[in-house]
């Protein structure tokens, strides 16, 4: 009866879900997190490292890990004490120049064993900006249709206005819930 077992038990009892919030830097990960956490989004600086926030939604307890846009982040999901159930990949829809980078990073990420099977939600963020690509364009640019290893969905959203954030979280929680928990 070590920490590992205790955490596993608690996790199941309290219907916990672990979500990783990832994406290139300046995609708006922290803004989204602060927005859904009901915090002030006016002052946000680049995230160094990570934040963990806990929220309740549809009867699930979500632990959202907001990981900075830097590269060496493997160790966060290599923690075996908690399994990662869902990935929220945030894209800056207005940053056309780095879409290629973004695609590469995402596809590399999906190769990670600890993330296999995790549900993938792509947020095409910053839809409020003029010139932002639509979610369909992003879907094509990121070659999402080639992903067969994960359940995935894409949704245009705006952290600033809060549009579609709830819908996205609904999808990811619902997908994870139906995959690993018995819905009452």
């Amino acid at each position, binding site marked *: *009866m*070590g*920490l*590992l077992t*205790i*955490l596993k038990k*608690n996790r*199941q009892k309290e219907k916990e879900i672990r979500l990783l919030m990832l994406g290139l830097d300046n995609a708006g990960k922290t803004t989204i997190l602060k*927005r*859904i*956490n*009901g*915090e*002030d*989004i*006016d002052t946000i600086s680049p995230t*160094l*490292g*990570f*934040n*963990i926030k*806990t*929220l*309740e*939604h549809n009867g699930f307890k*979500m632990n959202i*890990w907001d990981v900075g846009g830097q590269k*060496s*982040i*493997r*160790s*966060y999901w*290599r*923690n*075996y*004490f908690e*399994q990662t159930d869902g990935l929220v990949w945030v894209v800056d829809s207005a940053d056309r120049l780095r879409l290629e980078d973004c695609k590469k990073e995402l596809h590399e990420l999906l*190769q*990670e*064993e*600890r993330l*296999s*099977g*995790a549900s993938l939600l792509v947020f095409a963020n910053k839809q409020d900006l003029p010139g932002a690509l639509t979610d369909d364009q992003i879907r094509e640019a990121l070659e999402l249709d080639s992903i*067969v*290893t994960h359940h995935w969905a894409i949704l245009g959203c705006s952290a600033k206005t*809060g549009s579609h*954030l*709830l819908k996205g*979280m609904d999808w990811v929680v619902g997908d994870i819930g*139906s*995959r*690993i*928990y*018995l819905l009452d």
Partner: protein
Amino acid sequence: MSDDQDQQDEKFDIEALLDSVEDSDGYHPTSKTPSFFYNSSEVISAIKHVASFPLVGPCKVDLRGRWGLQMNLENLIGKYQYQSYLLDPMLEQMISPLITPIRKVVHDVTFGDLKGEVMNEQGDLVFYILNLICKTRGYKTIVKFLPHEVADLEPTFEFLKKQDKKRVWETRYVLLIWLSLMCMIPFDLKTIDSQATKDSERIPLVDQMIEKGKTFLQCAGKDRDGASLFLARLLTRKDTCRIYLPEFVHWAKNSLQSDTSNLIEAIGIMATLCWIFKLGQREVLLPIADELEDLLVGVENKDGLMSNSAIKKYIVKLSQRVGLCLLKPRVAAWRYQRGNRSLVSNLASGVTSRMEKVSMTIADEDEDDENFDVPDAVENVIERLMNGLRDRDTIVRWSAAKGMGRMSNRLPKEMADDVVGGIFELFSEDVFELPNGEPDISSVSEHTWHGACLAIAELSRRGLLLPHRLTEVIPWIILALKFDVKRGAHSVGSNVRDSACYVCWSFARAYTPDVLDVHVRKLSNTLIAVSVFDRDINIRRASSAAFQENVGRMGIFPHGIDIVTVADYFSIGNINNSFLNVAPYIAGFEEYRRYLSEHLVEVVISHWDIAVREVAAEAIARIAVLDLDFACGTIIPALTKNATSLDSVIRHGALIALGRTCKAVKAHSDIPVEERIAPEVLQAITQVAPSIPEFTLSGFGSEHTRQALCVHITCLSEAAWPLGNEAHQASVLNSWKGIIYTTLERVEEPLQRLASETFRALIGQYGITETEFEQCLARVRPGAEYLGKRGFALALGEVDYRDSRYSGFTSRVIEALDVTANHNPVAHGGAEVKPDAESRRNAINSVTNIVKVLNTDYKQMISHSMSNKILQMYFRGLEDYSVDHRGDVGSWIREASMQGLQVMVPIVARLDHHLTHEQADQRYLVEADHVQVLAKLLQQSVEKIDRIRGAAATAMVAILYAEVDPEAEAVAGKDPEYVLRVPHRAELMKVIEKSDEMSLIWLQASEVYARIVKLLHLPEYRFELLLGFVVSAGGLTETLVRHSSSCLTEFVSSLPVTKSDDMEVDGNDNVSTTPTLTLVEFAHDIMKIIDRYEGQDRLIVPLLEVLDLLFESGILLLLEHPTDFDFAPLVKFVRRQTIKCKDMRKLSASIRTFCGLCGLGGKIKNAILLELLRLLVHPFPKIRRTTADSMYLMLSGSVEEPTLESEEVGKILVETDWNLAVGALTPIRDRMYPLLGLEKPKVVSAPVRT
């Protein structure tokens, strides 16, 4: 199988995916874990198959078939044991095919068409699978998928009643949990029960069910658990609880208190009561709560029950549930809460910055919820839980901790605070104060601390540990994180440390950063120290997980992100990596550096586990160099003080750590260490080893002290540590040498090796006098004490003889070692002595070492005769086949000799190569030596022991492929120039390839013999190779014999009889470049072995076996006697082996060889028959039997037409009981002389037989 394949292709196969991921980047985390139910279709079709058989009547599938189905499903579903929630989406599809036939059979055999029949074993299998799913996912989840129809209740109960208790328990268990579900149907049972009467309150069906249920409570198996649940469900029904529940409690109380109560039943009753209090309505339970208190006290007074963990757990659990029942359900208004946590409300509110208003609310204390009475009984409950926290059994403590959390949630603030205080008191139980004011926790109970930590974690997780209590609790938690106490031969406390990690983890989830801010420093330091320096991998991981959680949620831990990135689950999994790489990295941050050093010096260096101390010593050295002033001013003085401690554990760790730290510090310091370290400390360091008390160097535990001292002295010597003025230096060195010399005489081999390395370091740095060297040399002379001889033989090889101080001794040392390496006994002091195997091996290794160190200076130091002596010593070592009670100890010496050749030959041959042709006489090695080296290695490469073959192969590759200029780069198309001059290089290189896979092939008997047998063609190596083959092919190990002998016979059978035969076939009269062996030559070589080794049974017995083999396969019979080959000497040889021989194996091999030789016919046959007839009356019955058997086989297998006589002989051989006394057998034997056409030999001198 193909069906399976198709299914695999159709669905998304996560396993295959993972494989491809691993291949792509080589990233292998631990085991693969599925992330969803990937083989669901396979599982469901298997389940449907199982459920498709009729459950009544004769079985279609036999036991084996059922077992196969069962195992298959166990494998498929068992994978999910640890992630059983993944099954959830498919559970309905898994369960309904199973329960449908069950329902049918239940109805059929109770009230239906097949009434009176019984369910067959296929039915049991269906129940078994249902239980398998229950076991994997948990029955609570499974039960939801079972049907709950009114009509099932009575038949199912009837069906249960009919179950034979001798059949498998799974059936009864599944039926009981199914019934427990049916008990929840909302209709009045009276309306269902067919036997119920209107006027009675009682329901006959319920009466029966309760009585039946009670009988199950006496079962020792899992069906008891099912029965508990079933009874609890039944008794907490609205229509039953009023009458039946008090009755049951009464019955329970009586049977628990009766003198005849049995333990199993008591567990069952307690479990049932626990369920009742979990499931029942509060108003139903309240009236019986008082009676429960009596019942609990009653059980507690029975020692027989209280020694059982399950009973104790149920007492804690039941007591807690009674307590919860006494208190009104509520969530403590006073609890600590952090933040607003609903996603929807956050998003709905939309507007920002309302966080501050809602966060950190501790409700006002004057709320009216404080105004309720707490029943007195609650105090008893709390006391019982408090005792439960200190219990010996983990399950009891865990249950009590959870109970504490739940109870506190319902208590008023004041009382809950008392509870917290009570838990704190558990920590201080049995804690004494040390003179320096620190708490001494060496005598506390690890159980109590574990329980207390669990309770604290449960409370803080629920927000019931208010922030103002943190200041009090955190010092205890920090102590608990480091709790590692040695009790007897093992340590205790890993559970305490683990639970302390849980506390820290729950802190991260419970509090806001500003609450913890003041404690961060201490917590982060300790968590990090435990993450990298704990002995147990689980604790390191738990601690790092807690740290990660804190970093992520608090963001206030200095350098948290960098540390989390480096100290992750994997990197700290390996203790060496954790101590030696991760810890120094973290120590790179100033905030942690000193704390980590101090933790090492104070805690880890005196750890009870020697391996931890050793790695900690290295870690100290690596961290010390990051801050030299701190190292010199604090760490080194502290270690110096500990190094003279009387506690052997502390002393051991500190001695090693001091040595390593001094060495590292000196290497990193740009100014002399004298300027950094205080003079009195310097003085103290030099005094450490000399002041070690004598008694610690001998007797129990002394090997550890000596090991530490050796490392200590080695490090200081290598560092050229200043030892003060000359006189002082001399006295220190004297003491060091004394330690080294006495350690060299120890019986432990690792210690001797260590001491010899220390010897090298010391004399390399500080030197020794000639007289001292002479003394060392004297220790390896013949007649010297054997342990010292082993040690000093090693030590002498560690000296660098290029050093002008010792070069004068070179030849004398080598000569002395050569004598020591000799396995042939020499006369000494009137007796024959020979050094023991370890000394011989050490001596040879030492010579090799000397040669290796000399390398290109060999020429200046070693004369021709000396070089030859070394070579001959190795050759002699290869002949060392000594055996003692440990087995083939000679193999150590052979191995050492091969390694010696591997080192020496390339070095020497390279020197030779630089000489011109005119200087050929100056060469160390002549051509014949080169051939000899290879031939002898080839012999070893086909010997019996895998390890020896491997060593031989390594040596051969090294020698054969040694290049003149090892640095030269390979030029395409041009062969490199090799130093070894041997004939048939091309053939050799084809067989002895230089590649990595080859090193494995040599270890495998199945590969090596087939490969090397071809080399028998080469006359230069044939004799030695054949020797090796004979030993293997005639050996005892079955696999070895099989592989080697089949290769040998196959090879020999392919040989031409004579050279001319070969020529005719080839039609080529040129002498081919590759020589080929002929059968005649082969036979001559066999005779050569006989001539040379007769009398050495190690070779002769296998040789006889091989001869038997070769005759049996008819190969040797191809030779014409006597034109091709004269067999007479061979017959004589075999005859000699049978005389006065008592070795059963040798005799029987000789007999078989005799029979083989008979195949030659003629005079030889007659001569041999006489021998065999003699052996028929051999004193050993077994030999008589063997002879008779072999003779019979030989005669019946003969090509000659059977005659009356030969049939008669065969009859005698078969029908006689050769176990009879020799006297009785002799006349029978004598009858055979005339039958075989022989004349009975006249007894020349009658042998006296008893």
